[in-house]
């Protein structure tokens, strides 16, 4: 199993984009994990020190309340990564279960589930998220739930499609004839085959979730203060753009690098696991 | 219409492993109104010859020498755009995969019009439409007026190949190259499509270069045959002469490989196993010295390694030549 992961990594290293992605992802992870630990307390307000340019003491400068931007940006990065991983994992699981169930059940259940997916997808993502957060109130749990709902249709549709194509495979019929109970059938045969492409989809979606969370935080409907989010940092910077543009630039560049890194990495993972492309690397 | 002749064609491919001399000194001719079957295994270079004539070779290919004589005109194939002006006017081509020959977002009419606008620019409007309809009818497509407005995905493989033949008909070329036109079709459709291709020869009197790996097809439809092996031409002559008296051991072996069907019993009861030619094609970057075929030949002698065999007349027929120093030996 370890060798599988190692060969995956070496495949990713081989493409130039993948290399950049991997480097960025590692840098981001280090920043997110160790940043807040090494730096100054991110919530420490010191108004006289506001709007300082980067210095040895404040690596990324200070914001409008004199808080250290390095640690706040690290905190925001951490939040972005945590939220995106949780959302993606949750929506993958729920989407997979619902999708497989719909594919297996057929009939009205299937039609109902598909209609549900279509309705969610009928809304532009951010608009729906903003509306739901505005109506149901902000808060970490709500944020997770709302953004997860946005992504369930994607995973659900893919799981359903995979299930439908697997259903008619001879080996499934064989197992059923032997008398394997349905639940075992799903657990043993369907889920493993369905999970593969879903995980690739998940890795491609991480940057999308990060962007949505940043956008929501930008308009004040995401991560709430005093917790830092890359989006809210950008918003704070934007509000005081005339006084100092440093807070904006620092967090905006970080957000861009985070999305760039995760996208490149996600694409490299997709290309490396694509059976059609595997031949090229050998 | 006065026939096509290719002399001294040499084509090199530049690859990562070095220069591959894919086609070496090929000389063949298709008489006016005659069908020449060019046969060979995959990798023998037959398709490459066709593409070189049309000037459609890949970027890493180069014609180092060779000429095409079309009627009274001579073209130096080593010049990059030598035959570009002939395309669609004096030369036409039918490709192997009928499902990929037509652009899916353009109607049949658009395809035919493109040929007509280049070949007969003075025919326009209604006359052009009628010409297109007639061409479709001639190649055996039903309801041609309706088919004209349809798109490729609405036609079967056999019909699409007929459209390709109609396009060739409209181009009225001196030389038609058909690159394995029926390989992707099943047997009954193959017969119909071959009938139309030969029909072209009757209608416009062009020479046809039929590239195929099927000897059966050659036996049934072609006037002359040319056999290629690993980039070299090993035998050429009329189908009758070569079938009756193959001069080159490779040709002999190929003919022996054909499974005959005993009509009375529905299968060949005498042949209990399949004949094969043992061995593989030679390494393209390290060909054997002398005769290219000697490593698989059943009558090779020591001299075969020293001499590159020149074309030798077979059975007193000047048009029948084989490149073997032991023509006639068993």
């Amino acid at each position, binding site marked *: 199993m370890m060798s599988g992961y190692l060969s995956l990594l070496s495949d990713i290293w081989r493409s130039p984009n993948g290399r950049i992605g991997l480097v960025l992802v590692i840098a981001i992870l280090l920043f997110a994990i160790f940043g807040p630990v090494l730096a100054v307390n991110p919530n420490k307000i010191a108004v006289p020190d506001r709007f300082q340019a980067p210095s040895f003491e404040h690596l990324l400068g200070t914001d409008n309340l004199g808080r250290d931007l390095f640690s706040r940006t690290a905190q925001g990065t951490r939040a972005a990564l945590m939220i995106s991983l949780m959302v993606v994992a949750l929506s993958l699981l729920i989407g997979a279960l619902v999708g497989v169930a719909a594919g297996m059940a057929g009939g009205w259940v299937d039609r109902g589930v598909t*209609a549900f997916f*279509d*309705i969610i997808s*009928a*809304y*532009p*993502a*951010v*608009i729906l998220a*903003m509306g739901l957060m*505005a*109506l149901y*109130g902000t808060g970490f749990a709500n944020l997770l739930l709302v953004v997860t709902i946005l992504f369930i249709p994607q995973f659900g549709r893919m799981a359903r499609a995979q299930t439908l194509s697997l259903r008619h495979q001879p080996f499934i019929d064989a197992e059923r004839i032997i008398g394997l109970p349905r639940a075992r059938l799903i657990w043993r045969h369907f889920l493993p085959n369905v999970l593969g492409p879903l995980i690739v989809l998940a890795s491609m979606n991480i940057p999308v979730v990060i962007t949505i969370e*940043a*956008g929501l935080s930008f*308009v004040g*409907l995401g991560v709430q203060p005093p917790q830092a989010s890359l989006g809210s940092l*950008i918003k704070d910077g*934007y509000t005081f*753009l*005339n006084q100092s*543009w440093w807070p*904006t*630039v620092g967090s*905006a560049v970080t*957000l*861009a690098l985070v*999305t*760039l890194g995760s*996208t490149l990495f996600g694409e490299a993972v997709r290309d490396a696991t694509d059976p059609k492309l595997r031949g090229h690397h050998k | 219409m006065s026939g096509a002749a290719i002399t001294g064609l040499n084509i090199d491919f530049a690859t990562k492993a070095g220069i591959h001399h894919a086609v070496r000194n090929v000389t063949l001719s298709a008489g006016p109104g005659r069908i020449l079957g060019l046969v060979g295994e995959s990798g023998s270079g037959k398709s490459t010859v066709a593409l070189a004539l*049309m000037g*459609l070779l890949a970027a890493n290919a180069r014609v180092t020498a060779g000429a095409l004589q079309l009627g009274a005109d001579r073209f130096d194939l080593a010049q990059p755009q030598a035959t*570009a*002006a002939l*395309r*669609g*006017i004096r030369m036409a*081509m039918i*490709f192997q995969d009928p499902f*990929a*020959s*037509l*652009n*899916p*977002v*353009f*109607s049949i009419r658009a395809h035919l019009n*493109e040929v007509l606008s*280049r070949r007969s620019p003075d025919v326009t409007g209604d006359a052009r439409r009628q010409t297109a309809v007639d061409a479709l009818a001639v190649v055996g497509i*039903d309801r041609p007026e309706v088919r004209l407005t349809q*798109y490729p*995905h*609405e*036609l*079967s493989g*056999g*019909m699409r190949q007929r459209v390709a033949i109609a*396009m060739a008909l409209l*181009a009225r070329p001196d030389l038609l190259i058909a690159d394995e036109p029926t390989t992707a079709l099943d047997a009954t*459709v193959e017969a119909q499509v071959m009938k139309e291709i030969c029909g072209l020869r009757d209608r416009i009197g062009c020479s046809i270069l039929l590239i195929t790996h099927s000897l059966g097809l050659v036996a049934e439809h072609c006037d002359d045959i040319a056999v290629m092996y690993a980039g070299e031409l090993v035998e050429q002559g009329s189908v009758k002469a070569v079938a009756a008296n193959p001069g080159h051991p490779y040709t002999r072996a190929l003919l022996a490989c054909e499974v005959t069907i005993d009509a009375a019993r529905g299968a060949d009861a005498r042949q209990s196993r399949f004949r094969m030619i043992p061995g593989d094609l030679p390494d393209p970057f390290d060909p054997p010295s002398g005769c290219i075929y000697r490593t698989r030949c059943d009558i090779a002698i020591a001299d075969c390694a020293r001499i590159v065999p020149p074309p030798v007349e077979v059975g007193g027929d000047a048009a029948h030549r084989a490149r073997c120093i032991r023509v006639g030996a068993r």
Partner: protein
Amino acid sequence: MPALGRFIAQRLAAALFTLGGAILFLFVIIQFVPGDLVSILLGPRATPQMRAEFAERMGLDRSIPEQVWLFFSRAVTGNLGEDPISHRSILDMILEVMPNTLQLAGCALVISVFFGVALGCIAALKPGSVVDTGLGVASVTFITTPAFVVAIFLLLIFSLQLHWLPVTGAGASDDPLDRLSHLVLPATALSIGWIGYLARLIRASLLEVLSEQHVRMMRAYGVPEGRIVRHFALRLALVPMVAVMGIGIGDMISNAVFVEIIFARQGVGKLIYDAILTRNYPVVQAGILFTVVTYITCNLLVDVLNALLDPRIARSLKQAA
């Protein structure tokens, strides 16, 4: 073209069905909001009299199916309610700012398609060249940077630092040049991501088409290379682009909200945002409804356009010997 007509009718029915579902969904969401429905919808500013009126108008005393019917019929006839603060028709409010958003989106669409296709073609016609690799790097950067980040950078550099272009607003309504200068930065911000995406898509698509046998066939008949690329290959290569546009419009609508906020353009997006800030839920609800209708309509148009461009979609396969 009866096949095309059938296809359009089919898609129209599906779109209406989805729209119905979306409206129902909106209704359901509102019902489940914790707390007193009337307070939520009218906000904290409502007087008891307003609340009574509102409750009656909303039919809150009637049965659920009747409420659903009321909601639907009002939505369909365009009655989006009344703004509790200004007492203006919300529909009027939306229609007033819609031109700004339409201009922004339209401009962004045109820019994206033009530059995306152009850059994609250039890259495809010279694969492996410096231009191609450069465009590849640029397109990844464009695609991944969120639109609002791009907007802020553009604002920072071109407005605040260089003073080349105006900072906020949509410009005077009667001066087209002024409006144009106010459009440049927001439209660019909105289209950047798309330019990168389309360039990549067209590059891959065109490269694939150029390697196909029908292109060789056209060359074999002497069609000049320029005509092959411009007329035959491009038409086929553009097909996947239209299919992809449907989703893209949703992204564009979402991003338009941010861009309008950053550049302080009065548009539908900013309207919704301001309403969220002031807890003006009737406007929020109406705004979302409007957005959904627009999105579904655009998707329908994209589907139809797709069918027009690609004959394989609407016409069924008829096999003949």
